[in-house]
C-alpha cells in the first residue's frame, strides 16, 4: 500500500486558501500578520487565520503559518505573544527558520513546529539535530538530490517535506543578502527584491566585459517535479510543497489540480500509471518561466539557468471564474478575468469534474442581454451550459 503524500499549497489570502483546498490540496501554508518572509504580501489577520483554519478543518485539512524570518533583536519582544496568538487560532503547525522561534514555540506553546527550507537543511546530521530538538517536520533545502533525500529519510525518523513546483532561489536560502546590499531591503526578513532576476554585466579579472548574447544573470528556471512524482512518492517523502504565496487563484487551482490528479493516479494505479504529457502542457501554460527538476537529478548546469533578458510571459489563459450555476435553468454566472468573446472555444475545469470543452455560442450580460465580447475586468456574464458546473470552477482558453 503506497502512502499518499500530503499536497501542500501556498495561499496568499482567504480566497486562495479556499481555492487551494477545494482544488485538492491537503494543507495550505499562509503568512500571518508578523514575522514572515512575504512582508509585502497582503497576509492574513488573526481573524482570517481563524476563518481559514475553520474552513480547512471542516474538510479535514490543515493550515500551517510561516514564522520564517531571521529575527533581529527588536523582533524578539513580540515573538512570544505572537506565537500564543497563533496557538489560539488553532493552526496545525508553524514553519520556522530561526532557532529561537523553534525554542519559544516548543517551550511556551503546544504548536507543532516545521523547520523552513530557509534553514537550508540538506544533510542527515542536521536533520537528526532538529529531530532531537522537537521539530516534527523538516522542509529540506532545494539543493538536495534524490539520493540525498533518500539517505536522509532512511536514516532519520522525521517527516520530510520537499518542494515540487515553483520559483527557485539562486543561492542557498539564508545565504543571499544581495537585496540588502543593492536595495537595502532585508532578504531574510521578507523584503527580498529578487536581485537574482536582475541583469548584470560580467567582467573578467581585468574588469573587461565578457559579453554573451544575453546579459549575465543569476536567474534560475522554475522547479517542476511532475515527471518525478512517482519516484518521490516511492521515496517516502511526507509532504509535497508548491511555492508561491503571491500567485493567483488560477495558478493555484491549475497547479494543485494537476498534482492532485497525478498523485492520486499513481497511488491508485501504481504499476499501471502512465505519464500524461497533457498535464505538463497545462502546467507549462500557466507558468511564466520555463521549469526543470533542478538539483533532484544532480544536474545544475546551464540548463537550469534562465537567460531571457527578463522577458516573462504574462498569462492570459484565465478567462473567468464560475460564481454560480443554476441546475434548473442551466445558467452559469461567470466573473471575467481576461477578454473573451462569443464563438471562442474554452475549457472549464474544477475539482469535481473532468475538463469540459465548450463553445461560447451565446453570452449574456447581467440583465439578460446578449453580448458579443467580455472585455471589462470582473465583468459579470451568464452562459447556458448543459454540464453541471460548480462555484469556483475556472474557465480558460482551450489549450490543445
Amino acid at each position, binding site marked *: 500500500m503506497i502512502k499518499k503524500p500530503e499536497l501542500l499549497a501556498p495561499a496568499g489570502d482567504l480566497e486562495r486558501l479556499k481555492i487551494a483546498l477545494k482544488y485538492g490540496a491537503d494543507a495550505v501554508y499562509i503568512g500571518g500578520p508578523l514575522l514572515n518572509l512575504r512582508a509585502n504580501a497582503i497576509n492574513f489577520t488573526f481573524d482570517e487565520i481563524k476563518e481559514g483554519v475553520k474552513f480547512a478543518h471542516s474538510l479535514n485539512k490543515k493550515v500551517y503559518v510561516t514564522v520564517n524570518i531571521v529575527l533581529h533583536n527588536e523582533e524578539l519582544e513580540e515573538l512570544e505573544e505572537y506565537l500564543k496568538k497563533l496557538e489560539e487560532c488553532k493552526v496545525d503547525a508553524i514553519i520556522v527558520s530561526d532557532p*529561537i522561534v523553534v525554542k519559544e514555540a516548543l517551550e511556551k506553546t503546544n504548536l507543532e513546529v516545521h523547520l523552513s527550507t530557509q534553514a537550508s537543511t540538506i*544533510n542527515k546530521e542536521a536533520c537528526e539535530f532538529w529531530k532531537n530538538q522537537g521539530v516534527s517536520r523538516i522542509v529540506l533545502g532545494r539543493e538536495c538530490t534524490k539520493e540525498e533525500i533518500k539517505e536522509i529519510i532512511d536514516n532519520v525518523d522525521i517527516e520530510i517535506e520537499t518542494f515540487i513546483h515553483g520559483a527557485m532561489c539562486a543561492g542557498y536560502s539564508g545565504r543571499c543578502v*544581495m537585496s540588502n546590499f543593492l536595495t537595502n531591503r532585508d532578504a531574510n526578513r521578507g523584503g527580498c527584491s529578487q536581485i537574482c532576476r536582475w541583469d548584470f554585466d560580467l567582467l573578467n579579472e581585468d574588469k573587461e566585459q565578457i559579453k554573451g548574447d544575453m546579459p549575465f544573470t543569476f536567474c534560475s528556471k522554475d522547479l517542476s517535479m511532475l515527471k518525478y512524482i512517482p519516484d518521490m512518492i516511492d521515496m517516502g517523502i511526507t509532504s509535497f510543497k508548491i511555492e508561491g504565496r503571491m500567485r493567483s487563484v488560477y495558478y493555484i487551482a491549475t497547479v494543485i489540480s494537476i498534482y492532485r490528479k497525478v498523485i492520486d493516479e499513481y497511488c491508485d494505479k501504481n504499476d499501471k500509471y502512465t505519464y500524461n504529457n497533457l498535464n505538463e502542457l497545462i502546467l507549462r501554460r500557466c507558468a511564466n518561466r520555463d521549469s526543470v527538476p533542478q538539483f533532484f537529478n544532480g544536474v545544475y548546469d546551464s540548463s537550469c539557468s534562465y537567460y531571457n533578458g527578463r522577458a516573462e510571459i504574462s498569462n492570459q489563459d484565465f478567462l473567468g471564474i464560475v460564481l454560480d450555476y443554476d441546475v434548473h435553468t442551466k445558467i452559469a454566472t461567470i466573473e471575467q478575468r481576461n477578454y473573451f468573446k462569443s464563438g471562442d472555444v474554452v475549457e472549464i475545469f474544477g475539482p469535481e469534474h473532468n475538463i469540459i470543452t465548450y463553445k461560447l455560442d451565446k453570452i449574456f450580460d447581467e440583465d439578460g442581454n446578449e453580448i458579443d465580447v467580455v472585455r471589462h475586468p470582473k465583468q459579470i456574464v451568464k452562459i447556458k451550459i448543459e454540464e453541471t458546473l460548480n462555484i469556483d470552477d475556472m474557465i480558460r482558453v482551450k489549450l490543445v
Partner: protein
Amino acid sequence: MSKILTIPSNLNEIEKTIDLVDGFIIGIKDMCVNTNFCIDIEDLNLLNKIKDKDIFISLNKNMHNKDLEIVKEILIKLNSYNIKGVLYYDVGVLNIYNKLDLNYDLVWSQEHLTTNYNTINYWNSKGAKYANISSDITEEEVIKIIEKSKSKLMVTLFGYLPMFVSKRHIVKNYLEYFKLNDESNINYIEKEDKTYPIIDNSIGTQVYSNNILNGIKSSLNINIDYIVLNSFKVELDKFIIVIEMFKTVNKDNVEEYNEKINSMFTNVDYGFLNTKTIYRVKKNDKKA
C-alpha cells in the same frame, strides 16, 4: 580591549602580520566559503607554525551528506592542534561535534543569520560557545547583542563582505551557455557603475559587496572579544596599515584614522553599521 583576528589571503600575509594580530581565521580546502586562505586537510601541520595565536578554522560551507564523514575526520584531526575554535554554518557540523569529545570550541557563524542575542544564546546552549555576528546589522544592534549574549563574540569591521553563496556554478554556466572563454580566477559583476567581486569555484558561487567596510569608528563603541579584519582583495601593505590603525585607534585619532582608510581605498563605506535595512515597503492596511 578587543583582540584582532584577520582572515588572511595567503601564507605570506600570515608571516608578515603575525606580530601585529592576535589570531587568524583559516579555512580547510573545499570545506569553506568566504575564507581566503585554505589549507588542505593533509597540511594541518602548517598550523603548528602559527604559535601563540588564536587560530580559528572555518568549515562554513553548507554540508551535503557526502561531506559529513570528511567533517568528522577534520574535527577529530583538529583536536591535535592548538586551535581556539571551528566556525560552522551547517548545523550538521554542530551535531557531529557534539558526538565527539573535543578540546576546542565551536563558533556559530551563519553570516547573515547571527542577528539577535537570543539565538546566539540558543546556540550557546547547544554547544557553540562563540558566535560570529552578522555584518548586516547596525552598530546599535551589535552592542545590544554584546550586552545580552552569553557567548564569546566576533564581528567583521573591515573588508569586503559576503552577500551571496550558491551551490550553482553561475559564472561557469553563463560562459558555457554562450560559449565564451575566460580563465579569470575572480570575476566581477557590474550594475549601475558598481562592481561586485564574484568567485565560481569547487563549492559553487560566492559574491561580495562592492564596497569595503570601514568600521574603525564603530570599533571604539563595540567592546567585543574579537574584531575581524578581512584582507580579501586588499593589498598587503595597505592591509598592514589598516591592522595597525585598528590596534591603536582611540577617541583622539579615530577621525584621522577613519579618513585615512577612506582615502586609501576608492570604495569604502560603513556597511550596515549605520544603516538599518527595511523589509516592509508596501503599506498593509489590514489590522492584525
